[in-house]
C-alpha cells in the first residue's frame, strides 16, 4: 500500500512542475505592470527601477521561474507586493477559512445527496424518484450567486435569522462561526448534493441489479440490510472517489460564494491578488491549489483501492 502511494506521489511530480510553469508563464504574459500597481501614484523611474531590482523582475524569465520554484520548495512563496507579508503566511491564514466552508458544504452535500440518491434508486420510477430528480436538476441549474443573494435577502435581511456576513474563526467562537458559515456552506453544498445524488442513484441502480443483491435477498435479509449493507457498500466505492475529487473543486468553487458572503477566505485572497497584480500571491495560491487538487486525487485513488478487496490485495 505504501508502495502504491509513493508511486502515485512520484507520478504527481511532473504534473506539479508543469502546472507551476504554466501558472508562472501565464502570469508573465498578462498585461499590466505589477510595479506600477505597487507604486500607486508614484511614477519616478528610479523608484520603479528600484522595485524591479528588489523583486528581481529584470532577470530572464526562466531564471525568475527557477528562483521562484526553488524558494517555493523551501516553503518560501515570496512576499506579497501589496501587503508585504509572506505569501505563505497569507495562505495559511486564509486556507482554514475556506477549508471550514468546504467541509461544511461537503457534509451538507453528503447528508442530502446520498440518502436522496439511495431513495430514488430504490423507488425508481415512482413519484419519489421523479421528485428527487426534479429537485436535483433545479439544484444544478440554479446559479450559486442567485441562491446566495436570495438567502441573504430572505434569511438575513427579511427574517434576520442568520448573519449575512462577519466571519469569525471557528477557534474563537465555534457556534457563531458555524452560524455565519451555514448559509454559504448550504449554497455551495446544494449544487454538490445534486451531483452526488445523481451519481449515488446510478451507482445504486447498477448494484441493485446485481446477482449478489439477489443472493442477499435469497438469504432472507431485511430489505434495509440488503440495501444499506450489501448494495450501498458496493455503490459507495465510486461515490467516495467522487467526493474526494469534488472536495478539490469545492475549494476552487468557493471563490464566488466567498465574494457574495464576504468571507475572508482563499477565494477572496486570489480575487484581490489578481485585481492588484499581486503576482507572488496569485502564483502561490494557484500552486497550493494545484497541489491540493493532486492530493485529493491521490486520496481518491487510495480510497478506491482500500474499498476494493481485489485491488487491496494487489497493492
Amino acid at each position, binding site marked *: 500500500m505504501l508502495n502504491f502511494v509513493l508511486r502515485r506521489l512520484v507520478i504527481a511530480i511532473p504534473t506539479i512542475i508543469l502546472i507551476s510553469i504554466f501558472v508562472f508563464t501565464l502570469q508573465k504574459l498578462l498585461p499590466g505592470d505589477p510595479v506600477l500597481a505597487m507604486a500607486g501614484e508614484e511614477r519616478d523611474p528610479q523608484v520603479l527601477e528600484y522595485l524591479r531590482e528588489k523583486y528581481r523582475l529584470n532577470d530572464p524569465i526562466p531564471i525568475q521561474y527557477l528562483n521562484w520554484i526553488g524558494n517555493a520548495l523551501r516553503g518560501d512563496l515570496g512576499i506579497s507586493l501589496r501587503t508585504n507579508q509572506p505569501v505563505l503566511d497569507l495562505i495559511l491564514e486564509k486556507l482554514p477559512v475556506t477549508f471550514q466552508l468546504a467541509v461544511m458544504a461537503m457534509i451538507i452535500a453528503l447528508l442530502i445527496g446520498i440518502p436522496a440518491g439511495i431513495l430514488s434508486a430504490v423507488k425508481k420510477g415512482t413519484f419519489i424518484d421523479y421528485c428527487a430528480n426534479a429537485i436535483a436538476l433545479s439544484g444544478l441549474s440554479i446559479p450559486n450567486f442567485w441562491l446566495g443573494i436570495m438567502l441573504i435577502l430572505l434569511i438575513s435581511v427579511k427574517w434576520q435569522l442568520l448573519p449575512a456576513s462577519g466571519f469569525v474563526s471557528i477557534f474563537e467562537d465555534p457556534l457563531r462561526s458555524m452560524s455565519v458559515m451555514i448559509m454559504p456552506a448550504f449554497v455551495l453544498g446544494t449544487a454538490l448534493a445534486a451531483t452526488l445524488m445523481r451519481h449515488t442513484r446510478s451507482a445504486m441502480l447498477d448494484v441493485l441489479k446485481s446477482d*449478489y443483491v*439477489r443472493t*442477499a435477498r*435469497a*438469504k*432472507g*435479509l431485511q430489505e434495509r440490510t440488503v440495501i444499506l449493507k450489501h448494495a450501498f457498500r458496493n455503490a459507495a466505492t465510486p461515490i467516495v472517489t467522487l467526493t474526494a475529487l469534488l472536495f478539490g473543486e469545492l475549494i476552487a468553487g468557493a471563490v464566488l460564494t466567498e465574494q457574495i458572503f464576504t468571507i475572508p477566505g482563499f477565494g477572496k485572497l486570489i480575487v484581490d491578488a489578481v485585481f492588484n497584480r499581486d503576482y507572488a500571491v496569485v502564483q502561490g495560491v494557484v500552486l497550493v491549489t494545484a497541489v491540493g487538487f493532486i492530493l485529493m486525487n491521490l486520496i481518491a485513488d487510495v480510497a478506491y483501492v482500500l474499498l476494493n478487496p481485489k485491488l487491496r490485495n494487489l497493492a
Partner: protein
Amino acid sequence: MSAATHCNKDIPIFSVSDLTMRIAGDASDIVERLSFDVFPGKTLCIVGESGCGKSITALGLMGLLPPQEVAVRSGTIRFEGKEYLAAEAHQARHLRGDRLAMIFQEPMTSLNPSYKIGVQIAEAVTCHHSGSYVDAKKQALAMLAKVGIPGPELRYDEYPHQLSGGMRQRVMIAMALINNPAVLIADEPTTALDVTIQAQIIELICELQKNTQMGTIMITHDLGVVAKLATDVAVMYGGQIVESGPVASIFNAPQHPYTIGLLSSMPNLSGYKERLFTIPGTVPNVQSMPKGCRFSSRCPFCSSVCKTQPEVRVVDDAHSVACHFAPLDQTLELSA
C-alpha cells in the same frame, strides 16, 4: 403429478399449483399454470430448453422477482403445511434462506465482492436465528468443511475474488444449506462451471442430500444430472409443464413428443444410439407462442386438433402428459 406411490413420505413438503406469471408489458404469460409437488428427501428435476422459463419459475417461488417487473397472476404455494399465494411469496422473508433456500446459475457474480465469504455465510445464520456471531462463525466453518473447502479457517477470511468458480459455488451451497432448509431450489448450479467441476458439484449435492429429509428442486438441461439425481422429472416447454412423472417412467416410456425429442438428443440414455437427434427450431418467445399446443410449431406429429390446448392426461399412476395423442399405444420411434 403425484409421486406419492413412490415415496415413503407421501405428503409433499412443497406444492405449487396453478402458477402463472407474466412479464410487465407482455401480452401473454411467460409461465402458465405450473403445478408440481416436492417430497421430503426426493429430488424433482425440472428440465427444458434455454429460455423456457425455468429460472423465472424458481425466482418466483423464492419471491425474488420484483413485482413491478413480473406479475404473479395466479398460483398458490403450500409449504410445510402452510398455504400462501405465490403473489405474496416475496413477503415470506422469514422462510427465505432458512426453510427455503436457493443456489444460482452464476457462482461468479452471486457473492458480494466486498465481504469475506465466511461473513456472508454466517450472516445467513444470524439473520434467522438469535445467537452470537461466534456461534454462527463456528457453524459456517463446519459448513465450509462439509462442502469440501480445504482449510476453512483460512478461507473464511477470503474474498470471493480469491476463489475459483467451483469454490464459489461450494460457498453458495454452504450458505444455502447452513440452516438445514426443508426445500432447496438449485437453478442450473453447474452450467457456468468446467465439466470436471460440474461432476464434483453434482456429487457434492448428492452427498449432502443423503440422510436428510430435504426436498430438492433441481433445474437443469443436462439429462446426465437428471439420471444421477432425479426421483421425479417435470419437462417444461414454453412456460408449461408438458410432461411429468417418476424418473424411470419418463426415461423408459416418454409420452410427449417434446420429451421424446429431448431424450433422443441424449445418446446414452435414450436408447436411440445411432444418431444424435435434435428438435428442429427453437422455443418461440412468449409473444409468438402458437395458439393451442405451444409445441405445435415444432412438433412432428402436429395435426389439426393441436390448435386447441391439450389437457393434462394421466397415463400411468404418477405420470401425466399434456398432448392430444397421449397415451401412446407403443413407444414412439422418431426417425429424424
